């Protein structure tokens, strides 16, 4: 038992390596927040493209659906390896794209952001779609009958209602995304997983990894509670008060 505790929960060891692990987790946080925001925006763009009306936009809808299906079906790790190994080898690209060093971040950080955004944009597009499709068709008709164009009606009428309904599932995806940033350790980005596992292989003590896991919990547990709260609030909107029934 003592050996078990020393291997995984050595508090003194954790204290000694706290700074290094926290530095790694700071990179993890930056990676998660930046990719998360970009995926939220990219997903919304994809969902909007998917809803464009009429025959004219059939090719756009088709391409969007193909994109979403493909990138939800590919493992994120493979995409990370494809991008990190492939893009630097594309000689026709300028160096600033092949080996991006923007804002003082190394190229593998940006490759991670790109891969996560591509994958989670596809996931989030599906969440947005569920939200858009849950808005009754009469809303679009009312907006169009008042003279708004499709885009205007989307912006002012449909999306505000749709997004409100899917904030909880979007946050869920964000929690999953945060955990999946650990995959970027495979391309040698010194985020928390890589830092902690390096410590593990040097010292044969796993407590640094446990510390990293605890740091994740410090972020993901409050988020999970927040999701529960949001879901409860959304549901109560539809169960409280009788006039609601008539309105639907």
């Amino acid at each position: 038992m003592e050996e078990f505790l020393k291997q995984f929960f050595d508090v003194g060891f954790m204290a000694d390596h706290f700074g290094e692990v926290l530095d790694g987790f700071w990179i993890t946080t930056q990676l998660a927040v930046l990719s998360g925001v970009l995926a939220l925006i990219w997903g919304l763009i994809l969902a909007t493209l998917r809803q464009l009306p009429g025959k004219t936009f059939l090719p756009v809808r088709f391409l969007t659906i193909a994109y979403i299906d493909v990138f939800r079906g590919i493992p994120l790790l493979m995409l990370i390896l494809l991008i990190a190994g492939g893009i630097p080898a594309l000689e026709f690209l300028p160096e600033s794209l092949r080996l991006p060093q923007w804002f003082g971040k190394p190229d593998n950080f940006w490759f991670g952001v790109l891969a996560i955004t591509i994958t989670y944009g596809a996931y989030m597009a599906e969440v947005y779609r569920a939200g858009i499709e849950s808005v009754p068709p009469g809303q679009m008709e009312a907006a169009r009958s008042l003279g708004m164009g499709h885009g205007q009606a989307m912006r002012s009428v449909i999306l505000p209602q749709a997004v409100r309904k899917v904030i909880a599932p979007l946050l869920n995806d964000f929690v999953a995304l945060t955990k999946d940033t650990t995959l970027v350790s495979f391309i040698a980005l010194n985020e928390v997983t890589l830092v902690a596992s390096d410590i593990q292989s040097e010292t044969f003590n796993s407590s640094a990894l446990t510390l990293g896991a605890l740091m994740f919990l410090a972020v993901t547990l409050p988020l999970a509670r927040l999701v529960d709260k949001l879901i409860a609030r959304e549901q109560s909107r539809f169960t409280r008060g009788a006039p609601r029934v008539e309105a639907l």
Partner: protein
Amino acid sequence: MTALDGSGSMLSLRGVCKRFGKLEVLRGVDLEVRKGEVVCVLGPSGSGKSTLLRCLNLLEPPEEGDIHLEGRSICRGPGSGSGEQSWELDFVRQRVGIVFQQFNLFPHKTALENVTLAQEKVLGRSAAEARENGRRLLERVGLSDKLDEYPERLSGGQQQRVAIARALAMDPHVMLFDEVTSALDPELVKEVLDVMRELAAEGMTMIVVTHEIGFAREVADRVVFMDEGGIVEEGPPADVLASPREERTKKFLGLVLER
């Protein structure tokens, strides 16, 4: 554009056809509506009444036939004849207002915001001007004390009156009413019909799809009876409602008036 100036044509339909897949919903409808006229459209469910209204503002563009609005053909466009799209969408939507059976108010906006949104986004009015206009219209439909309420806090009758104000805010030349009292509790019907009576008295051109025979008798200049996607009979309410010529009209009125 008063009721007296009844000579000008507001809407003119020639052989309008609408299909949903194989289902023929409208089979060659001809109809003239003059400026300031109130036309009530009666008929059994599935007779094509609602679809007719939705053709008129191009929510469901017709596949065949033509519609003239204030003398201009509105059915021409890139998908002409396919029910796709019209070049005249803006022309139509700026002149034709519609009120729906299910109100379709924007639930994330207050009553006043429902009325101001399209004024600002479509007509480009300033926020102040739109609010002023919105206040005036909501007062006109008897809701000056509900400006900042959200739709879910309003009764069905109140919601429907907001919807009427919202449509009027765009200064339409014609108003379409699609069974606007059918989703209401009986005691709320009158407040909506009263607003429509006032509108009619002010000379608004109106096409009203309704099951309210009493309203049609009292307010309509003309009653149109539809069945199976066509117009069976039309004329002054005194004639059509009191002594219908067609068997189908008689049968329908018999069933409705029996209630």
